[in-house]
Every structure is written in structure tokens, then in C-alpha cells.
């Protein structure tokens, strides 16, 4: 680890100000991704701006037809929240299956979403549950937020303050865990909003994406058989030493079908 200056931001405005004024600053949330990167000397920011002391950024609530998760809420809190379990059980379940207990108690939704790791679970939750990413500057639809491998629509000085999930008629998340890391090799969020359906896939591509063919098929008839034979092309998918693109493509269909099976 290289040396850096540590700041404890008093509020979001303070954090944002420091982000634009300092030399090469980074926000520190749970540190589950950022700190290993620093320890392995893969990054050397001049300043870390810790959001941990900002009370406004913590907690979950149900507001109208939305579940609101503030940026610094750890995964374990979302998983254990009675409100979330009642209003949007698929989200609680998604959060409860991230990594391991230590990671769930430190890692935050803001850090996860800002990082846009191709194998992270929350991106599938955001896109599948038609979420809005709220920052100190604007509101961004999840569909427009995740742009690519570790790439988001966030601009300089922008701080995620909360994520607002739209409560669906019903939804389910299925994940094939990476045997080493626990991340998603393939994660599929299927959600039904009245006559509309959303199918969002993480783990398989450079970033989360939707499967319009499956969505259309489910909108016609919301049943496992509607999508069981929809094959996904491996062409745009990722392959690595653990799972080939072809295998991931296969898993997407299996897990989408299983998600629907769990819902009907």
C-alpha cells in the first residue's frame, strides 16, 4: 500500500467538494474492493474520502412503490431488513447471497453500484428492478447507468446517495456462484411489473444487460416454458479459466427458467 491522506467527509457536499478539489481522490465506502486494490499496489490515490460518518447515507425504507436503499447501507442490513423482505424479497435474497458474511457486513450498495464489477449482483438487481440511481447531482435510470466493464455514467465529483428500486408484482433472483470468489458467474433477475417483464443478467457480459427476447416471451406468457428454449448467444459473453462463454450462455437460460419457476 502506498501512502495516502485520509478524510472523513462530514456530509455529501463535503465529500463532493473534496472530490473535485483534491489531486487524485477516491471515495472510500466499505473498502471491500478498494482496499485490496491499494494493498496490491494496483492503485495509488492521493486521498481517500470516507463516507462512513455520514448518517444520511445509511438505512433502508419503503416509500410508496419504491424500496430505497441509501448508498452506505451494507448488504447484510438489506438482507436482514424486515421491510425489504416484505416489500421486495428478491432484493433481500440477492443481498444475502453476496460474497461471505464479512463482505456483507462491510460492502455497501453504493460501492457495488459505483464499481460496476461485471460479476457483481446488485447491477442485476438495479436493472432488473427498474431502479433509479440517485446521486448528489441527478437521478439516473439503471438502464442508462451501467455502461461497460467497470464503467458507469458517474461523472467527476458525483456521489451516489441512494438507489430506488421499483417494487414489482413479483421477482426472483437466481445466481450461480463462482466457486472461488462467490461472485456471480451468472446471475439473473427476473421481475414482473403487471404485463411487463424484465430479465437482467450479470456475471456473463462486460456489464449487466437485459434479455429482450426473454422479456417479450414472458410478457406473452409468464411461464418457465416460454423461455426454457430461448438460447443465448455466447458471442458477446465473457469466458475465463473457470467458465467459458458457451457455458455461461447455457447457464443464463437455465437460471432464467429457474427464476420463473420459483415465481409461478
Amino acid at each position: 500500500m502506498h501512502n495516502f491522506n485520509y478524510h472523513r467527509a462530514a456530509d455529501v457536499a463535503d465529500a463532493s467538494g473534496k472530490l473535485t478539489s483534491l489531486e487524485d481522490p477516491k471515495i472510500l465506502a466499505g473498502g471491500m474492493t478498494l482496499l485490496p486494490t491499494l494493498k496490491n499496489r494496483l492503485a495509488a490515490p492521493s486521498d481517500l474520502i470516507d463516507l462512513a460518518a455520514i448518517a444520511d447515507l445509511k438505512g433502508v425504507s419503503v416509500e410508496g412503490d419504491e424500496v430505497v436503499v441509501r448508498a452506505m447501507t451494507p448488504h447484510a442490513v438489506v438482507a436482514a431488513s424486515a421491510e425489504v423482505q416484505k416489500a421486495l424479497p428478491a432484493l433481500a435474497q440477492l443481498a444475502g447471497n453476496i460474497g461471505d458474511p464479512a463482505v456483507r457486513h462491510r460492502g455497501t450498495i453504493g460501492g457495488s453500484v459505483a464499481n460496476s464489477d461485471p460479476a457483481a449482483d446488485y447491477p442485476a438487481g438495479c436493472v432488473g428492478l427498474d431502479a433509479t440511481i440517485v446521486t448528489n447531482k441527478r437521478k439516473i435510470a439503471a438502464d442508462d447507468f451501467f455502461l461497460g466493464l467497470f464503467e458507469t455514467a458517474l461523472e467527476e465529483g458525483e456521489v451516489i446517495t441512494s438507489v430506488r428500486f421499483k417494487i414489482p408484482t413479483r421477482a426472483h433472483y437466481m445466481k450461480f456462484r463462482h466457486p472461488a470468489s462467490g461472485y456471480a458467474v451468472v446471475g439473473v433477475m427476473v421481475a414482473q411489473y403487471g404485463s411487463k417483464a424484465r430479465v437482467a443478467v450479470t456475471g456473463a457480459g462486460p456489464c449487466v444487460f437485459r434479455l429482450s427476447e426473454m422479456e417479450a416471451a414472458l410478457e406473452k406468457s409468464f411461464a418457465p416454458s416460454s423461455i426454457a428454449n430461448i438460447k443465448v448467444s455466447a458471442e458477446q459473453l465473457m469466458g475465463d479459466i473457470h467458465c467459458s462463454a458457451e457455458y455461461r450462455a447455457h447457464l443464463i437460460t437455465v437460471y432464467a427458467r429457474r427464476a420463473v419457476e420459483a415465481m409461478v
Partner: protein
Amino acid sequence: MGEFAIGQPVTRFEDPRLLRGGGRYVDDLAIPGMLFGQVLRSPHAHAKIKSIDISRAKAAPGVAAVLVNEDWATSGFGDLPRAEGKKKRDGSPMYRPHFPALAKDKVRYVGDPVAFVVAETVEQAQDAAELIDVDYEILPCVTSVALGSEPGAPLVWDDCENNICFVHLEGNKEKTEEAFAKADHIIKKRFVITRVTAATMETRGSIGHYDKAADRYTIYTTLQRALNFREELAETLNIPESRLRVVAGDIGGSFGMKSGVFNEVGLVLLGSKVTGRPVKWVCTRSESFIADAHGRDNVSDAEMALDKNGMFMGLRVRNLVNMGAYTQPGTDAGAFSNLGTLAGVYLTPAIHVDVTAVYTNTNIMRPFRGNGRPEAAFVIERLVDLAADELGIDPAEIRRRNMIPPEKMPFQTGLSFNLDCGEFEQVLDQSLEMVDYKGFEARRAEARKRGKLRGIGMSYTIEKAAAPGYEGAEVRFDRTGSVTVLTGAVTQGQGHETVFKQIVSDTLGIHPDEIHYLQGDTDQVFFGEGTGGSRTAALGGSAVTVATGKVVDKAKKIAAHMMGVDEVDFAEGVFTARETNRTLSMKEVARAAMSPKNIPQGMELGLNATAAYHTTKQNYPNGCHIVELEIDEDTGQVEMDRYVVVDDVGTVLNPLLLKGQIIGGISQGVGQMLMEHIRFDPQDGQNLTGSFMDYAMPHAEIFPHIDIKSHSVPTKTNILGVKGAGEAGCVGALPAVANALVDALSHLGVKHVEMPATPERVWRIMQEAKAGRA
């Protein structure tokens, strides 16, 4: 004595200390004035070092020294310990490369130490290491053992032809060929045993401290055998052993991996000598993947000859074994010292094994839990299942038919093992009953309805433990009658403290709270070898027993003298004068033994005893594992559902610790069979699995309840009757899980599943089998 007696499930005395953070591992030690070291490692698998420029690093803040090969060469230190004694096929001596602590002219694996920076802080050492400029000329490399010995393969050592380190032959070739000529069936298969890493919870580490005034070296380090380590290291340093002290604190797992004298041990000592201050180096987790020794990694071409009744007539095995880039004593042992396991528990009359050890551009190897046993067990037990399948005989039945019956003991197998005892069929039957073997097909049919392919697999494996050797023990009574017990063994988590205290408590009647266990410091422990090869219960346990026996003999004489009788009886810590009601406790006698007025004339004061116990024969733990698992037909994911073990480890000293050993071993065997795998890029030799994000370790959640029973057949090869237990779990697990996987897929015509059976691999096997059938 009572609840602490031998055979009781005593909970571990070391746990409260270790679990509360009271352990003292190398990284917990700090010596005033201590500096920190950082190793600069080769980023290439094979390259010429054209030049090294250390000037910028030397000038960096806080740097005390920057060492390169030249510094090692001129220090008076010699090679790190080197393997010796084996021969090549033509009878010429094995290839033994020089082994300096820092690479000379060439690097030979990714991670090969090139330079060592010593600085005031770890961070300063890291910063400075980044400032060393090394100019490499990259050379072609070879990491695979199968490719390494092929003509034309890149040479790891220019003057080592075909990369062949040595050849080892065992068994009877002629008889084996005759058996194959007469056979009704021949089963042939190539088995690839993957490379894995020990991934110990505590990484390796060392503190070197050269005391100039005393001209004496001290090394605090992670190891398994402190006294053997001292012998080897003293030779490297070119000093008498008496000028070297080796200290091991708590060791957080080793499994064979930490048993070598690694480069960094030499480097912290040289660093200390050069700077005049103690130097600490502790391996980071990321570094450990490229800096630790690895385990296994071989290819077996195996054949079994059978008659028409399914009786094994002969076994022929050719092994290629990966040696990595350098060899040390012990790094090569996995290639030959446990081949006896290949003979299994079977009558097979004719066996021949031909082993070729091959250098490659990979990390050095060390024993890893089983050290050749799991590899051999995998080969024989997979072959047996393949034979059962080919001949249409039930796997349990074909094993039963070929098993060595107790009345044939002692039995000389077709390889080195000369078995003294064992009741294999009884163990098999007990396991079959525990798993409800008869009910399996119903469970398979029920699983099928859920889209799951259920399989059952068994292994019956045997291994050698406690190879002939010795161990020392010392029992010291304090003036007040409490005890310190010392042995040469070094626990790495096995629980030596608990078992040794049990033995002392049981034999002397002293409460464990009044017994202190001390190990791992060569200035304190007078004699012994150390821990490894499932030897400590047999050798260390026996040594402690002999020492306490000497104490009792002497104490009896003192007690008789004190009570004015000719003879006394001793039981449960109490001496009783016959035909009187007078008694003395062990503690009373121990206190009294400190005063000349209490002891018979001519006797030495005190109640201390030492023992140097040795054996000439190894023992043969054996056991049956049966596992049931289910494969998800859609995804290839494997889930174990039942796991039963019946083990014969002779006398059981502590059933709780025994279970811990078996379960730990099983988890490492299952890990290798299902997920663990060190992989190198075949082109550039980079380690592709250099972190826990890519190197998958089994978590507790993947295991079903593991049901373990003991069927104890005590051995006469040591005084306690114990057989080794440390490696047995791992030995049995690999083939049992493999056999269950193949069984689950057998309806598709699948005959073998390579390790690791990752979901994708299993899914592909199913796809291919279905395509082939369509």
C-alpha cells in the same frame, strides 16, 4: 487419568489460547531493532538475467541492504539443501542443480527470488524493490510434466537432458509382464493428478538474527522438524550446528509445505549478517501462491491385469512426476516413497512401477498431505472401479474378492509394503452398512425424479505412516511436582499438546493443568526429528510413554524407600506400599526426590527422564470411504449428500482429534477433486490462479455430515499400538469422490472424470456423452 485418559475425547488444550488470539506465530514476534525484508521475484517463468541495477533501490529511503546472487555467493553460505541419492535410468546420478537463495544468471519459475531488499519498514522495502531494474531475456518455458520430458522441450537446466531429474523403479518387472501375458482382461487408463497448493492459514515467515558478539545465528521460522531443519540449515550456512538456534512458535498449518528450508530463510539470515540487525520476512497471501512449494502434479499411465473371475493378477504403472525447477531433500519424496499405496489392500501378486521425475519451470514441490499416497490411492482405486465396470462386478464385491484376509498377515505386497495387520473386509462391511449400500438404487431413482443424477463411490485405501525413524521426549519435574514435557515433534495444528498431556496425565497421574508442553526450540529440545508423514502419535507418543515409564520406575524406588518397603504398586498417580495402608502421590514423590535424604543411596536427584524412541517398522492405517453425491443435470454442479468413513488407525488416543484429522483430510481431498487447481499459462508460464478469487477452496457449506467410525486393529510396530491418522482422510477422499462422480454418469457411458470436476467440466462430459449417444 480419568477424563484425560488415553482414548478419551479430550477437547484441545491449545484451543482457548489459539482461538482467543493468544497464538505466537512468526509474524507476532518483534525483536528490538528489527528490519523488514521484501523479495523481488521473477515475473517470468524462464529468462536470462542480463543485468540487475540496484543503485536506485539502495538509495531509497530506509533501505539498509539490497542483496543479489553475488552477495549470497560471497557470503560463505552454500547451496540451500539439495536432494540426493536417486539415479537416472542409465545408473548415473540424479540431476542436482545448485540452489542459491537468489537466482544466478537465470530465473526458472514465476516467483523465483532475484533480489532481497532490507529496510526499516515493509513499505519501504516494497517501494525499494520496485526500483530494482532487471533486464531479462525471456526464454521458452515448460510447465507441464507431460510435455517437460518430451524431446525438444525447453530445458530448465541446460545440462539436464530432457529435464529428467531421476528415475525410480519398484516391484518385479518380469513377473508383472508374465501376469499381463496371461491376463483375461487388461484395464488401461491415463490419470492426471493436478497441482494444488497447501494454502495454509498462516503463510510462511522467518526472522533471522545474527548475534555478532556470540557469532551465533537464530532463525524463528515456520517449519515441521526443528532439529532436522537445524542440521540442513547449518550445512547451508557452513557452520557447526551448535552455532545455530532454530525456533518455531505456533505454526498455522503446513501439510508438508513448510517442511523445507526455503530461500527466504537464508535471505533473512544473510540480511541480518550484513546489517547487524534482526530481519523479518512474512509472505503475503498473494505472494504465497507464487512463492510457496506446491503439491502433487503427476501423470500416471496405469494398467491392471485380471483373470476372468475378477482377480487382480498384475499392475503396471508409469508415472511422470513434476519436480518444479529445483529439488530439496523431501521435495522428491512424493515421487517414490509412498508408491506402496498402489498395491492397495489387495492380493495382487505382481506389480511394477516406473517413475520419471521431471524438472519444469514451476514452483518447487513439497509433500502435501499424503505425499504420493493420495495420488497412488487414486490410481489403484479408480482402476479397481474401471475393472468392476468392465467385468460387470459390483465395486464392493470386486474389492472383497481381492482383499488380503487377516489370516494372511503379515503379508508382503507386490511393492514395498509389508503389512502387519488389518481387517479389511470387516471395515468394508461396516462402511456398506453405514451408508445403506443396499438402499442406494432406490435413492438414485428418487433423485432422478428431481433432475439429479445420483452416484455412489467407494475407496478402500491403505498407506504407510510413521516411516522408520526416531523421536525424543523429555519429562522434567519441577521442585513442586508440576511437569514440563518436551518432544521433537512440532504441531502445526494437529493437537500434539493435547495428546502428549493425555499420555503424561494417564501414565503419571498428573493433572493436565500442571503439565506444560514445550516444542520447536532446538536450544531446549534435546533430541528428535519432528512432525510429518503421520508419525507423531506413533513415534512421539511412544517416546513420551517411554520417558514417563522411566519416571515411574525411578519414582517407585523412591516411594518404596520412603515408605520403608521393598516394593510398591503404582496406579492413577498413587504409590501404595503393599500390605500397608500407606500411600504417596506422584507429586509427593517428585518433591521428595529433590532431597538426598529421601532417595536410595547412589541414586541421582530429581525425577527427570529422557527417551529416544525409534522404530524399524512403519505402520499401515487403512480405511473405507463411501460417498454419495448428486449432479445437477442442467448445470453439472455437484452436491455431496452422504459421506461415511470407517478407519483403522490402530489404538485411538483421542477420538475427537482423530475425527478432526479425518475431516480435515477429506476436505483437502474433496477440494482437489472438485475445485482446487494451480494452473499455469502454457505459453508464458504465468500462474493463472494466484489468489483466492481464482483458486477455489472448499467451504464447510459444501460438505454433508461426515460419519466416522473407527475399527481399531492395534499394530505391534510401536508400543501404543497406534497407526498414523494425519493423512488418511485425504488419501481416501480423492478416489471415493471420483468413483461417485463416474457412477452418477455411468448410464451415459462415462468412464472417467478428470479432476477438478468443475461444474463446466461435468456439464461438458454430459453434453459430449449425450451427443455421442444420439
